[in-house]
């Protein structure tokens, strides 16, 4: 492990540090005074960042305002879902902690889109908040090389454009050559309820305004975003008998590749109810007291997570809106009514909740609210999530304009790992779009920025068919092992599974299926398919509607005689062999596309390119290019509204510049614009 490498740069930093800061030193614990990586914030980004850095071997300090709220789920109590579970599986494939905690805390699991295909299949867990916090905390405490310390950070220490550590509210000075900032909505947070508003982080927590001021003074572009939560409800005052019950899936899925159904606590059902015409009337009548509609809130809210007042106004013809009633945990009766996020005044919240079927007598335990907060324009980041302005400072999570635990955690892992690698003097890892949702996430943020809280969707991934939940380990675990992120246990488990998958695929590829044979006849009877040409068993698997697990079920008694290869093989292995066989053609085709894009990835656009001098670009595109200043032609091609013609113009201009610069004889026009756009 690279722990030894990590020590070298530390010495220099320490000397600078001592000279500059005479504040109190951190020597009260049995911990080093000097860390390799300091992570500020112990939410979902912070926890993955801290554990990732520590797994790589960096001595890591995790600073939090409150140890009690480590791993707190501040919005709805669920992990996973479309696009998000893909991120969780990637975190897990890199030996992160989110999936394992979700398996230990999940009290209701569902697999979404089971029939629409493996690439859009997504697992979601309702989590017991308390169990989730416990799980995260115990996973943190089990991590070697990671120290946790409860302390608010008030300042960043900077020397010559490099971050050197942090100062806490007690005046303690903590030194490290890399700092990961994961402060979520705590920066400049402002809570709205009706026309009242007050400064705050999550309801009940203090905002980090001092640090926010400090960060605002640094050369980062700061913008405001908005998000909201619904009022919480006391389950004892709810009539579940009139609601639709939604039980979890059977068999129970796991989220982690290392997960075991035995990890799951007791399972419970969710419920579904709806708003109605009366609810909508109440909301409309109160819009003049809505901070959203009276102009008090300036931050931009997410399109996919509208408040109930937004839904009622924008889709006025809808007679009802769905509400998922999610349990907050096993030890509490509190409920999270997902779908009625609101910032209307308290009296309106009570009236609107009680107009809903099943909630007629509901008691609100916590009011809903909207929160506005600062985020830093992610275009100011490098692909490693290090800031361009301050060396050694990394940003991860909501602070970069994303929303969601999973999006935050994924960034945290990347930032934590890259911070550790930086201290070790190694190159950062910058995942590509065709490699991981994490690559899509970072590329979208850095290349396009965002003007609403960014949430992952599978439709954001052009290589969706490759980036599946089921193959996150194949895509990332070997890489994670090389990066020092993947520990021995996971690595062995991965290698074992991979071996079984490869062996089975090999065996089935060799197993000849000839018309009229016993195997063929049995399969024809079992599936209704006709086998008229000789082929392999693996080829048969590629047929639509044929699944290995389906075969297992229909062949059960004959299995040993006709297909002994399948006996005793785990479902996970069967599924993997099957998906890989079925998707082979699609994946190959996408590889061609990826190769074309990579060519454009190699065409660099000079950082100081004078876009005003590039003739033939529309003003709109010129603006966009000026703002995002893409580093390569491939990145330029992903700017919304970019046209192949404009890319050709750019390409020709770049080539012309280099021709002039190198005094070359020939200026080669691209044969077609289509080539240029890849």
């Amino acid at each position, binding site marked *: 492990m690279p722990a030894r490498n990590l020590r070298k740069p530390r010495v220099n930093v320490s000397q600078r540090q001592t000279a500059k800061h005479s504040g109190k030193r951190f020597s009260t614990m049995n911990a080093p005074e000097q860390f390799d990586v300091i992570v500020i914030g112990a939410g979902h980004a912070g926890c993955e960042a801290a554990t990732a850095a520590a797994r790589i071997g960096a001595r890591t300090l995790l600073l939090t305002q409150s140890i009690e709220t480590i791993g707190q789920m501040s919005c709805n109590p669920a992990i996973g879902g479309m696009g998000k579970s893909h991120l969780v599986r990637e975190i897990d494939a890199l030996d992160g902690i989110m999936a394992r905690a979700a398996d230990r805390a999940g009290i209701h699991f569902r697999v979404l*889109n089971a029939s*629409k295909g493996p690439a*859009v299949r997504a697992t979601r867990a309702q989590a017991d908040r308390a169990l989730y916090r416990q799980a995260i905390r115990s996973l943190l405490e089990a991590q070697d090389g990671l120290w946790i310390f409860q302390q608010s950070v008030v300042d960043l220490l900077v020397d010559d454009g490099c971050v050197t550590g942090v100062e806490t509210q007690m005046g303690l000075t903590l030194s490290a050559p890399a700092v990961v900032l994961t402060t979520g909505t705590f920066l400049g947070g402002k809570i709205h309820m009706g026309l009242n508003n007050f400064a705050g982080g999550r309801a009940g927590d203090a905002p980090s305004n001092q640090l926010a001021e400090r960060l605002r003074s640094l050369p980062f572009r700061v913008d405001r975003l908005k998000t909201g939560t619904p009022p919480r409800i006391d389950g004892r005052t709810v009539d579940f008998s009139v609601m639709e019950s939604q039980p979890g899936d059977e068999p129970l899925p796991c989220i982690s590749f290392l997960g075991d159904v035995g990890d799951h606590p007791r399972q419970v059902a969710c419920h579904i109810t709806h708003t109605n015409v009366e609810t909508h009337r109440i909301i409309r009548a109160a819009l003049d007291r809505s901070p959203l509609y009276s102009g008090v809130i300036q931050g931009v809210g997410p399109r996919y997570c509208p408040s109930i007042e937004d839904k009622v106004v924008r889709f006025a013809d809808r007679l009802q809106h769905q509400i998922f009633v999610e349990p907050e945990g096993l030890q509490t009766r509190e409920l999270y009514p997902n779908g009625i996020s609101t910032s209307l005044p308290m009296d309106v919240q009570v009236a609107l909740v009680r107009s809903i079927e099943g909630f007629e007598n509901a008691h609100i335990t916590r009011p809903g609210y909207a929160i506005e907060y600062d985020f830093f324009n992610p275009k100011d980041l490098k692909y490693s999530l290090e800031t361009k302005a301050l060396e050694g400072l990394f940003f991860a999570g909501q602070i970069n304009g994303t929303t969601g635990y999973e999006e935050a955690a994924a960034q945290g892992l990347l930032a934590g790992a890259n911070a550790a690698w930086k201290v070790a003097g190694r190159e950062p890892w910058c995942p590509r779009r065709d490699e991981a949702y994490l690559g899509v996430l970072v590329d979208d943020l850095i290349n*396009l920025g965002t003007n609403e809280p960014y949430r992952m969707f599978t439709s954001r991934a052009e290589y*969706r068919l490759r980036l599946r939940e089921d193959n996150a380990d194949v895509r990332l675990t070997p890489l994670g092992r090389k990066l020092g992120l993947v520990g021995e246990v996971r690595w062995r488990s991965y290698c074992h599974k991979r071996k079984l998958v490869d062996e089975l695929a090999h065996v089935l590829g060799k197993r000849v299926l000839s018309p009229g044979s016993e195997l063929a006849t049995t399969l024809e009877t079992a599936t209704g398919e006709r086998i008229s040409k000789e082929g392999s068993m693996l080829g048969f698997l590629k047929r639509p509607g044929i699944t290995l697990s389906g075969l297992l079920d229909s062949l059960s008694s004959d299995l040993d005689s006709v297909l002994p290869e399948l006996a005793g093989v785990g479902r996970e292995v069967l599924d993997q062999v099957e998906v890989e066989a079925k998707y082979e053609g699609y994946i190959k085709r996408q590889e061609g596309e990826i190769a074309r894009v990579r060519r454009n990835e190699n065409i660099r656009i000079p950082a100081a390119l004078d876009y005003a001098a590039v003739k033939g670009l529309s003003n709109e595109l010129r603006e966009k290019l000026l703002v995002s200043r893409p580093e390569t032609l491939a990145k330029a091609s992903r700017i919304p509204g970019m046209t192949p013609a404009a890319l050709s113009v750019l390409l020709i201009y770049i080539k012309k510049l280099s021709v002039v610069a190198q005094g070359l004889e020939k200026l080669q026009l691209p044969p077609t614009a*289509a080539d240029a756009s890849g």
Partner: protein
Amino acid sequence: MAAIAETIAAVATPPGQGGIGIVRLSGPEAKAIGEGIVGGALVPRRVKFAEFKNQTGNMLDEGLVLYFVAPRSFTGEDVVELQGHGGPVVMQLLLDETVNRGARLARPGEFTERAFLNGKIDLAQAEAVADLIGSSSRAAARGALRSLKGDFSKAVFDLDQQVLQLRVYMEAAMDFPDEEVDFLNGGQVVARLGEIHEGLNLLLRGSTQGILLNDGITVAILGAPNVGKSSLLNVLSGEERAIVTDIPGTTRDLLHVDLTLQGLPIRIVDTAGLSDSRDPVEVEGVRRAEQQAVEADLVLWVSEAGREEIRVWPGSDNTIRVANKVDLTELEAGLAQRPDGQSHVLVSAKTGAGIDALRAHILEKAGFAGDASTFTARKRHLLALEEAMAALQRGQTLIAENLQTELVAEELRIVHEALGTIAGVVSADDLLGEIFANFCIGK
């Protein structure tokens, strides 16, 4: 913008005998070279009559010289035009002289390229200009003009919007499985795929026409000796005398004629009669004739009406069987069915009977539908449309087989991206924006 150092020169008028021939120069040395040739100072935008001389003082030609100062010229650079008496020899001498004085021969399209690089025209215009210049018939030129006006882009854009709307439903169905909206039935996927198919088909046909109009087709006339191949060639080319040019082929035995049929440029190649002779010259002639048949877009296989074919032609999809000398028989001229089920066109090269039917049949076989709805599509446009069509058809098959939504969605993404290479790219975020604008989604 940094200037390109080289000065380029080319003959700007079409090759061949013409009343006027122009040599055009563009670049920083254009003025100096022009002044050297005419032996005097050039004044911007002033026409001057002068003698064109080479460096040893011999007169090459005489004519008009024009000078345009950068950036107020076609290319945005200094441009000089020497307008002489045309004729390939004089033009070549004049062009050589510009090279002797420091110019470089321009690559094809390099003037347009410089105009584009200097911001005088945009890429689409540059392409359309190139098409206008390169168009080999009036119909093709009309198609290019239509594309310049943006009819083609508009048609592609409309189709692109249809694909976007369908994707909105498909993607919403996958990314928002919890919503109480039946996206797939609501989106009427099958019907919409059908509509897109139809639209794509129209576009493809229009674009194929445009490419046909630009590139034209080659028709080879084959047959046994003395069945009347050459008379057929003459009668086919007879109509549009004005644009027919007879050019001897590279060998004595091949002759081609260029003509246009309803605007479609056609090159008709006459071949030596296919005989079974052992004479080495004739054997070589037959070999070449067969080679022509392979390379041609269409083959006219000519035999004599009412007679047994002396030599059997294997035939293929692109073969039109022609029975000549119908005037010597009782048979009626025109398209007819043969006893063996093959269709053939009965004609008389001598009287002209059946020739109109043959022309119509040639156009039909070439897939040419007149120029009513054609676009000057570039080859790349056609390739993109074909890629879109292939993906769309795969998607339709997947739906028919009731396969997974994500695979249909993948094919639609490819359709969309292929159209995007013409109409402009729609980003994933735009797609999501459409979803949120259309449906009440989210918790």
